[in-house]
């Protein structure tokens, strides 16, 4: 495990030094045109660092190309779904659980989190459908908040393992089997599933998010998972060891409760992995502001996790490294907005120097990475919707929305913290 990690780091470092050497010439060419500090900040933020991170990720994923198979298990498992005003979506996620091809018993625990719509009635409809191997229980949590609902559910779990599923996520028919095989065989404290977008064709924004999930998020999870350090076992679909979560006292009442929980598990020396063959189809925001607000929350959640458990407090070398990389993401977002975008505009006005050839090469690495990821996901033989236009639109505008929203999220995190100190 360590050898392959080191190999990929060396590969990334080689790329870094190659591009650094190249950028010495580049920087000299623009040195008397623009301030030096700005030039180096932009070069490192749009070419050197992304090049390093992406090439080591790419190489590591290549080294871990072969998917691990685990023996089939049939231990009992609880699936925990929390719903707040989800009357339209909840039925199909419950149905997807009941229809799972899982060889063991599933205890479905649905928590109604202070819903004011027909969610409760929708859940009740399914109670008669439970049979010997698939039982349904419902709980009510009057305090609004995901972490409260999850903790309410946690208190009623009787199995050794449980799976959290969002009320707007539909599991693929083998998802529970795959994720259970993984967690039982590896004894990870948590296993993140692979999320695909369900409502791909709803709007332009769902189309571009499809590729973010399929190519970027999955690539990062696979990379981190290879070293048992997946930083986010997302609430939307992940499996956990009940005992480990209970020891931590469940979820904390924060914006990114799933991020903080994963960080805490790893802080206790437990491992966090990723199972690409366990697929859940999730409903993503279909409007610009829906997407914007979600990414804002994620960014804030990431900082919450990082500030509660800073990288140096992580016992595992790998987790330390990945958490540290996450700190760099803030800088990358800033240099994307204030370096890359002005550079592209300058290039369009006839001054291509700041954008540079190296950035172009880095973009090529990025496309290569996406392509390899696409092949990998295709190999799983689990269907996803795909369109060339969507991919192009993803390449062209996703990062701008993402960086903008993330920056907003970082800002609210810092403002919020300031408020707490007063």
């Amino acid at each position, binding site marked *: 495990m360590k050898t392959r990690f080191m190999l990929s780091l060396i590969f990334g470092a080689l790329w870094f030094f190659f591009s650094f050497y190249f950028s010495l010439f580049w920087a000299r*060419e623009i040195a008397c045109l623009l301030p030096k500090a700005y030039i180096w900040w932009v070069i490192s933020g749009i070419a050197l660092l992304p090049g390093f991170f992406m090439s080591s990720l790419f190489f590591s994923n290549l080294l871990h190309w072969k998917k691990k198979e685990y023996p089939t298990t049939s231990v009992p498992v609880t699936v925990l779904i929390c719903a707040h005003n989800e009357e339209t979506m909840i039925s199909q996620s419950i149905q997807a659980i009941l229809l799972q091809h899982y060889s063991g018993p599933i205890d479905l625990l649905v928590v109604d989190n202070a819903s004011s719509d027909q969610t409760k009635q929708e859940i009740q409809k399914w109670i008669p459908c439970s049979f010997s191997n698939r039982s349904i229980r419902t709980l009510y949590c009057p305090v609004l908040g995901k972490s409260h609902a999850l903790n309410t559910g946690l208190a009623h779990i009787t199995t050794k393992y449980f799976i959290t599923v969002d009320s707007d996520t539909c599991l693929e028919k083998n998802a529970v089997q795959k994720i259970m095989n993984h967690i039982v065989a590896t004894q990870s404290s948590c296993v993140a599933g692979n999320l695909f977008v369900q409502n791909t064709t709803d709007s332009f924004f769902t189309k571009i998010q499809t590729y973010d999930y399929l190519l970027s998020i999955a690539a990062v999870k696979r990379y981190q998972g290879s070293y048992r350090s997946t930083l986010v076992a997302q609430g939307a679909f992940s499996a956990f060891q009940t005992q480990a979560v209970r020891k931590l006292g469940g979820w904390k009442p924060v914006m990114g409760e799933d991020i903080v929980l994963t960080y805490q598990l790893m802080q206790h020396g437990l491992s966090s992995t990723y199972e690409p063959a366990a697929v859940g189809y999730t409903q993503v925001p279909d409007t610009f502001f829906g997407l914007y607000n979600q990414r804002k929350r994620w960014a804030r959640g990431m900082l919450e996790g990082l500030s509660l458990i800073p990288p140096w407090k992580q016992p595992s070398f790998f987790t330390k490294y990945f958490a540290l990389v996450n700190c760099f993401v803030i800088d990358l977002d800033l240099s994307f907005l204030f370096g890359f975008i002005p550079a592209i505009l300058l290039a369009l*006005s006839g001054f291509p120097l700041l954008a540079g050839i190296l950035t172009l090469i880095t973009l090529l690495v990025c496309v290569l990475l996406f392509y390899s990821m696409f092949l990998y996901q295709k190999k799983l033989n689990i269907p996803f919707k795909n369109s060339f236009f969507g991919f192009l639109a993803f390449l062209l505008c996703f990062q701008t929305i993402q960086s903008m929203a993330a920056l907003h999220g970082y800002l609210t995190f810092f403002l919020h913290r300031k408020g707490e100190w007063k």
Partner: protein
Amino acid sequence: MKYRNIGFILFISLSCLLIYLILLFSLQARLHRTPIQSEIDPQQPMIAITFDDGPNASYTLPLLDLLYKEQVPATFFVVGEAISGNENILREMAASGHEIEIHSFSHPDLTTLAPQQIREELWKTEERLQTILPDYHARYFRPPYGKYNQQVQQTIPLPLVLWTLDSGDWDHPQASSIYDQVIQQVQNQDILIFHDDNPETIKTLKKLIPELKKEGFQFVTISSFLEHASSASVLLIK
């Protein structure tokens, strides 16, 4: 919430735009410099500084900065092959009041070429310069390595311009030895040759120009040199 988002997005977009405009303005400003003014007193000593083998992406710009700061006009004998990618450098050169002349397209030894090839070396470069600077017309030509023969002379329809004092910077010695070489030998009505393709030349000129000014030299371009200088032995005019 929504208004706050719109506000934030507007704020970031405007900041992006502002950064872009500041960068664009500073880049544009270089292309619209007021030309270097030089009034020549024919009674006083004068020298022409010339640069060969450019434009160079790394070194021509800092050189232009230095010349502009010192208000020294110069003549650049450019190589056609080096132009692509450095268009803005040439625009800035012309705007600053320097002279741009031709030093061949691919820097060959012209004495080994056929007349047709020699002509090509000239017009291909001139054509490239004209796409960047529409009013451009070459007035002088400097053959690579200073090598020419009768055939070259007859084929090139422009006066050939050589030099009288070689700085020796083509050999890439230390700046201090280039400086010594020039300062010991320089005389009134010298044509100095440098190459704007290395950092030592710039270092040399940083020290040399103020020193030459102190000694009372005026700096001229090749065309005003021809107008004012009494000795034109280095020029082969047909």
